[in-house]
């Protein structure tokens, strides 16, 4: 130990730590980049092209080579290479300049879309990932899951028909359900409906939707609709959207008179000494946590009051059906109430 110097030891230590950080740091670490570049092999490129073509055809848009290169995040040469291979394998064909899917190509594309949407459903229902992460994670998964795995996953989820954005999940045999409803801007003032689809592209617009209190399956009532903005009420909040953003929401109109409560508040806003009736649970609460709230007795019509105020602000304890249950504020904010 004669030639030992603590400074040198420290320096070596921090060098190693720094190196590990550069290699393994999230997303941009070398390790992940390397992993990604190995994975973006031909299969991934082909599948991504198929998926893009499917989406374009689905929305009746035409694609040529140029647009395709623009939307895909691969280098030009590899895309051309992949396209050539796909034409040979009878997945796509050229109709003059326009790229089109063959019968086989469409089947293949549907399978990828199926895996992607199933996986999003899985992330939404069975995991704790935030909704902003679903899409990217599903994007990675869609190339990994085999056909059989997808069927197993589907059975495990109870063969869902729609993904958490409301997009239909193609069935095993390639059938695709219809999304019911119309774009929100087409609804007149006073109309009541249920949100059946939230378009997650383009990203900029989707982020604006995420920022608002808008959830799949919640009831809305249109209050104002003109060329500058659309205002509607949903779960007790008033939401104002630009028409271009609102167009990304699909709403199924409910014709019969549905009472949409006006003085809706959230349980988190309840003060000590107040009592309230529960109107329902926001659509934002899904899966296991929603079920748990219901099982604990937070059901429509139940009376609720604050039992104990927490010394640190939260969780507060609520008296519900004779028992004191503590909920954190983010949970309480998902329970809709009407104060007495």
């Amino acid at each position: 130990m004669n030639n030992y110097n603590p400074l040198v030891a420290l320096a070596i230590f921090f060098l190693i730590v720094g190196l590990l950080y550069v290699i393994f740091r999230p997303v941009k670490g070398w390790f992940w980049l390397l992993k990604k570049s190995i994975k973006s092999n031909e299969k991934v490129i082909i599948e991504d092209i198929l998926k893009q073509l499917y989406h374009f055809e689905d929305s009746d848009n035409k694609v040529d080579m140029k647009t395709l290169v623009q939307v895909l995040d691969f280098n030009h040469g590899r895309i051309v290479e992949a396209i050539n291979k796909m034409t040979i394998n009878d997945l796509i064909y050229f109709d003059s300049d326009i790229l089109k899917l063959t019968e086989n190509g469409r089947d293949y594309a549907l399978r990828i879309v199926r895996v992607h949407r199933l996986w999003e459903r899985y992330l939404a229902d069975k995991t704790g990932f935030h909704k902003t992460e679903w899409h990217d994670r599903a994007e990675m998964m869609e190339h990994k899951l085999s056909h059989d795995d997808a069927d197993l996953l589907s059975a495990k989820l109870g063969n869902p028909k729609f993904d958490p954005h409301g997009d239909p999940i193609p069935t095993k045999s390639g059938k695709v359900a219809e999304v019911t409803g119309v774009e929100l801007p087409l609804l007149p003032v006073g109309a009541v409906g249920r949100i059946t689809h939230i378009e997650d592209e383009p990203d900029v617009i989707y982020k604006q939707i995420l920022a608002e209190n808008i959830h799949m399956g919640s009831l809305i009532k249109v209050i104002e609709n003109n060329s500058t903005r659309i205002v509607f009420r949903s779960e007790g909040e008033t939401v104002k959207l630009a028409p271009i953003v609102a167009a990304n929401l699909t709403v199924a109109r409910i014709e019969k008179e549905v009472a949409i409560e006006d003085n809706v508040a959230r349980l988190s806003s309840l003060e000590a000494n107040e009592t309230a009736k529960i109107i329902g649970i926001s659509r934002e609460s899904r899966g296991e946590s929603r079920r748990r709230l219901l099982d604990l007795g937070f059901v429509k019509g139940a009376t609720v009051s604050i039992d104990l105020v927490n010394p640190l602000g939260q969780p507060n304890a609520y008296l519900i059906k004779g028992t004191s249950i503590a909920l954190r504020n983010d949970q309480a904010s998902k329970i809709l109430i009407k104060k007495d």
Partner: protein
Amino acid sequence: MKKNNIDHIIELSNELRWQIGDEFHDNLTEGIYADAADIVKDTVKTSDSEKRFRLDAKIDKIVTSKYFGFPIMFLILGTVLWLTIVGANYPSSLLANLFLDTIHPWLRSGAESINMPWWLSGFLIDGVYLAVGWVIAVMLPPMAIFFPMFTLLEDFGYLPRVAFNLDALFNKSGAHGKQALTMSMGFGCNAAGVVATRIIDSPRERLIAIITNNFSLCNGRWPTQILIATIFIGAVVPESFSSIASLLAVIGIAVLGMAFMFGVSWALSKTVLKGEVSTFNLELPPYRPPRFWKTIYTSLIDRTLIVLWRAIVFAAPAGAVIWLISNLHIGDESIAAWLINGMDGFGFLIGLNGVILLAYIVAIPANEIVIPTILMLTVMVTGIGGGAGAGVMFELDSINATGDILKAGGWTLLTAINLMLFSLLHNPCSTTIYTIYKETNSVKWTTVASIMPVILGFIVCFLVAQIWRLF
């Protein structure tokens, strides 16, 4: 097995599920509660409906109040811990007297009188018996005090209020308020703390509580902390302050453990456990007077004896290993000496030494035997007088004499501080590891829970050693 053709039923159920929409579960639960309300309207009369019962509400107002809530909590939990540590001293030394100073010599002379070969009596009596006796003497009294007291609090209904009060802190590190209790339980025994995580019903938060339970300084480690702090930390301040200084040092280590618990919980919830499902709910049950004797009896049977039994099962082979490595020779050195020499370099780098590292390896089954093993190995490699021979663990009644042996083994203040840190930050004992595996049923999480603290320990000790040597 008979196979039924039910595909059409499944098909139909899938079809119907989509017709009735995703409100099925909501509607069904609402329907059941509506039925329940109807029945209750028919059959139950209350004088003061929906109000919670008055005495409960009064107690709750006090124990969760802004001003009294936390002092009451610290007072209660502190008292429990203090009673455990202080109260265990006397019965522990009594048991040690009995097992180690009375029965052990008696067994040895008995073995001699029937001409048992030295290696057999050494292996069985100095190895296996001594380790088991040690673990019982050090482990049983604190657990027999701690668990009944904790269980009484639990049965009374106070503990859910602790979780309620502290949840906001745990929430910030992605954990569950009930982790406050599994952590407190860990101060008694980490294995019991890991079992106690069953009260956390959210999968992610439960895993966090299991993995970080080891940061609660358990009963097996308190005596080590206190001994080393008394010898080394107490000595650097004037004598009148020495006991308070060593006390503060030990509390400091325990608090540092909590800091690590929060930090690691936070890191886990932000990284590897990000995707696990997280649900929170905490029922505050009515207070119920615990049945005193019954609680004491059941907590002794259920918690203390089960944990003790597991510890004995693991300690016995550890005793055997300790004896074997000190008595089997390769060339002219014992295996222990070889291992110590091999690890000395690394030990020095992190401010410890080969003896300590070896002691921690052989003492994975029970933290209780770390100090006796260190003493035995130190005497063996330094060749100074004292001790009871190769492979025979021992401890001294005099703290000064213990300090002398350790100083002869090359210990400095740095060694002492790092030992205290390493005692906090190392792998859980094998009983706990086994319990973690049983509770998580996952090799992956058991490995993480076992390896992560030891790596943290290396890093912390390394940094402390380098910075210490710079000045």
